[in-house]
């Protein structure tokens, strides 16, 4: 396997609504920041891979226009995924394994503000049986939480503790949308939103974008003082039909975590893409993380959840922390689909 590392990362200061600028204007400063951090001109980038959803933008082929933020002329080597940016990173990593690509730039963006996000997300369901019901993302997560609570997989107190910790971490993250000191007991006294979920158990609605640069081998060592090396990465998918899955655990995360080698060494911290509070508990258990492992030191998706981007941000946040020496070995994770249907797990290490 060819050594590939994250060497640079930039993200927006995520907000409920970024309506004064379009997607290109949102991305362009981040491209400049990420390239400047890597110390390279854009001509050195061999491959660009982007992630977004036309359903969020409400425009067909909106991702093509977003390339103006990088500059696709003269023609560049480029690809796009209609998934979270973490999968664009995965595609870039696979391409880099083939040997000819030394530097890849990955970007992702999502504005939830133009549409009604709960209705928009329902369009990812199968169009025959679930789509016509307009089953929304919060309701599906609530069903998962209900199943987990009744099965004894976790408690409401644990969910409140997750929220309190996320918000505390979010307060220290200048890019996060939410943050602050919250008492778990006070959170539990809040009314239910979609039972058993309270509003704080759900992710905020967020507009945001992120750009990340990957480099291979000695190129990474040349451009970064402390690259975050991808030591293992694996992606697993579960069935689309919710009824055939055990929603109280995440089998795909268990498998991806095992194949990525999570248990092969100590984990200093983990950035887990858990849009709902109970999902962090399911993921923590699926990855077998010890109780003292800090999860989401950035605040996680509960403090900023730009759709199509929040997974890639987990990779960027983990790499940034390794780069500045907060830890030597971290887990980065991204999810996609309702109730943790797809999961991508990665082990990042400093040298």
């Amino acid at each position, binding site marked *: 396997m060819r050594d590939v590392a994250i060497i640079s990362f930039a993200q927006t200061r995520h907000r409920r609504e970024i*309506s*004064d*600028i*379009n*997607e*290109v*204007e949102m991305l*362009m*400063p981040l*491209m*400049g920041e990420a390239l400047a951090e890597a110390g390279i001109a*854009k001509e050195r980038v061999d491959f660009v891979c982007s992630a977004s959803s036309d*359903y969020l*933008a*409400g*425009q067909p082929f909106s991702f093509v*226009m977003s*390339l*103006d*933020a*990088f*500059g*696709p*002329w*003269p023609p560049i080597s480029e690809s796009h995924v209609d998934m979270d940016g973490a999968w664009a990173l995965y595609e870039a990593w696979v391409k880099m394994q083939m040997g000819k690509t030394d530097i890849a730039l990955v970007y992702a963006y999502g504005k939830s*503000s*133009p*549409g*009604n996000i709960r*209705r*928009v997300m329902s*369009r990812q369901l199968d*169009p*025959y049986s679930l*789509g*016509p019901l307009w089953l929304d993302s919060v309701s599906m997560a609530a069903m998962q939480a209900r199943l987990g609570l009744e099965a004894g997989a976790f408690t409401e107190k644990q969910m409140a503790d997750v929220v309190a910790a996320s918000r505390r971490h979010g307060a220290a993250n200048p890019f996060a949308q939410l943050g602050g000191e919250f008492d778990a007991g006070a959170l539990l006294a809040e009314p239910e939103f979609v039972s058993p979920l309270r509003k704080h158990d759900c992710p905020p609605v967020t507009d945001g974008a992120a750009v990340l640069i990957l480099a291979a081998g000695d190129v990474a060592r040349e451009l970064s003082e402390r690259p975050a090396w991808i030591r293992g990465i694996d992606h697993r998918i579960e069935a689309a039909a919710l009824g055939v899955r055990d929603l109280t655990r995440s089998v795909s995360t268990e498998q991806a975590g095992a194949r990525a080698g999570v248990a092969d060494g100590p984990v200093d911290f983990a950035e887990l893409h858990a849009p709902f509070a109970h999902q962090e508990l399911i993921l923590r258990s699926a990855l077998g993380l010890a109780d003292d492992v800090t999860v989401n030191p950035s605040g996680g998706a509960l403090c900023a959840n730009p759709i199509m981007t929040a997974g890639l941000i987990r990779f960027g946040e983990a790499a940034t922390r390794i780069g500045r020496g907060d830890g030597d070995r971290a887990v980065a994770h991204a999810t996609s689909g309702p109730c943790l249907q797809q999961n991508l797990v990665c082990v990042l290490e400093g040298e």
Partner: protein
Amino acid sequence: MSEITLPASLQGVAPVKSIRTPASLEYQYSAGRASSRFLNNVAQKRLVGQRCPTCLKVYVPPRGSCPTCGVATDEDVELTDNGTITSFCVVNVPFMGTLMDIPYVSALIVLDGSDIPIMHLIQEVPYDEVHPGMRVEAVWVPDDEIGATLESIRYFRPNGEPDAPFDSYKENV
């Protein structure tokens, strides 16, 4: 293809050959800073592009960035509503939403002072006389109908000037 054998409980059930599941989503689209500035100028009957600080090309409508250099464009450049046809097509197929009688001409027009063509309609000239290099001018809708949209220009028509030399628009062909 192998034959599919249905379980007994499903045999004889009338197949559903199609279902109709209407879906609609509403969006509040924001044009962004550069496009908003351009469209607000159109409402004033002005065409204002933006110049790339690196390669000096002038883009209209501006999207706030140079696709070649990947840098922000923030210098406004006032353009005229005259330009040169670089390419065109004769539309012979009616399609939903069209307000034009066929055949009609859609053309790429590089406005004087800009480096990228806009697309618009050509009228007041027989379609078989339209050609690259033809000089054209905008015909605006009446002042009380002008708004922040390119539909404020009804179409372009020949402005009577002699053809532009090929060298003046060859970069856009």
